[in-house]
């Protein structure tokens, strides 16, 4: 890619002046999401970085109807919105829930699971910056193996996160949701296309976008996209969609790069030994094998 793909809409529905850190990958995900879905949506957003940085009263960055009620209930609020829209006969308006990985994989999982199980007409988008960033980098279920966070510190007896990353897309797919997809902020068109596909389906759909966090991942502000891209190019993050049970990998890295290339740009992995890196490489290899990536 040496030119921005023409498929990306020009309209900016996320206003500048938001308070995200310089180089924030997540706010970029928000920008893409709004480009993909346009004006006819109602957004329900979980507490988290994106909520906090975009709505310091009396200001808002949102040019679409937007509500925040709590941390754990983006999906339930969105389900109520969908029900309300339906009851009022408002057609053509999509209810969209957005939450971080904490608000999705952990404290918000049940509300999401309930909405999917009931078949509510909600598009749920998780922006995954792999930790509770808003509260200052605590581990979430989606924190990857080996990562430093403030609750998985590097000490004498423990060395960072010791559990594999929780696989929320697989969990939602196991619910039988009609559409589940992963995406990355480094691949905006792929992300936008998936969001549109998801929005077009009447029923619960799920898009999970990988989005770096500058302080949380301990990266340089300028490297956000580079790091996100390396996650995909190394196979640490796989781009795929599952439509009505059919899995399709939407981007296969031409030749997989070693995962160390991805890890070494990030301060949160600085402490890793060669051995630990090799272990992560094995986990990535195993994952890629499952997805049929070389």
């Amino acid at each position, binding site marked *: 890619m040496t030119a921005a793909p023409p498929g990306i809409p020009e309209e900016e529905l996320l206003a500048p002046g938001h*308070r995200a*850190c*310089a180089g*924030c990958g997540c706010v970029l995900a928000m920008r893409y999401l709004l480009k993909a879905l346009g004006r006819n949506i109602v957004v329900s957003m979980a507490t988290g*970085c994106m909520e906090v*940085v975009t709505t*310091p009263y009396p200001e808002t960055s949102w040019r679409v109807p937007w509500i925040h009620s709590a941390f754990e209930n983006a999906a339930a609020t969105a389900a109520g919105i969908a029900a309300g829209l339906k009851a009022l006969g408002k057609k053509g308006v999509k209810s969209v829930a957005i939450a971080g990985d904490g608000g999705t994989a952990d404290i918000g999982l049940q509300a999401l699971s309930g909405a999917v199980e009931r078949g509510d007409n909600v598009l749920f988008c998780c922006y995954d910056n792999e930790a509770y960033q808003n509260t200052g980098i605590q581990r979430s279920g989606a924190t990857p193996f080996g990562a430093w966070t403030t609750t998985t510190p590097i000490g004498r007896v423990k060395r960072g996160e010791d559990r594999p990353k929780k696989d929320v897309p697989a969990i939602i797919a196991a619910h039988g949701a009609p559409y589940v997809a992963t995406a990355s902020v480094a691949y905006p068109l792929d992300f936008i296309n998936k969001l549109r596909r998801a929005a077009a389906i009447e029923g619960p759909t799920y898009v999970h976008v990988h989005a770096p966090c*500058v*302080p949380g991942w301990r990266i340089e502000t300028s490297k956000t996209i580079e790091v996100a891209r390396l996650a995909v190019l190394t196979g640490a993050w796989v781009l795929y969609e599952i439509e009505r049970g059919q899995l399709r990998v939407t981007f296969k890295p031409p030749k997989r790069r070693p995962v160390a290339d991805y890890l070494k740009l990030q301060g949160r992995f600085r402490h890793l030994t060669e051995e630990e890196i090799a272990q992560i490489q094995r986990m990535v290899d195993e994952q890629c094998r499952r997805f049929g990536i070389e």
Partner: protein
Amino acid sequence: MIEVRFHGRGGQGAVTAARLLVEAAFLEGKYGQAFPFFGAERRGAPIVAFARIDDKPIRTRTQVYEPSHVVVLDPTLLEVTNVAAGLKAGGIVVVNAKEAPTGLPAGRLAVVDATGIALETLGAPITNTAILGALARATKLVSLDSLVRAVGNYFGDKLAEKNIAAVRVAYERTKLL
């Protein structure tokens, strides 16, 4: 009671600076309080932090409205914030800058190129320890010695050394205007 306000940007360590000042005062047998004023802002956004120092225990818990002194960790803040707001008569503004900034009342100004010193001593533009050297020099709130000890206690071995160097160099190079 002395009250100091620190202006910095999120992520620059203004809060740590306030705390180190209190730790240094504490080493001198004084009482102190260091606290941030946090907003919803992220790194890069202007923030403030405060320190109080006194000879007796400090009970008051309000914000600092009229600081005795002001410390500015980042010269770019001068353009976006009125750093001298509420400054008490006779109070000193300690600024990280290569040259004396304009627009601030003279005679109450201390200038140090903390960024330069930090790059020199730490290898990174983290100015919060260097600027403390300047503060100590300009206000005599704490001695250089206590400051060095406080910084030494706070940081791990390697970092301590470098930061102490930053404090010392800044102490030397501070220009009182």
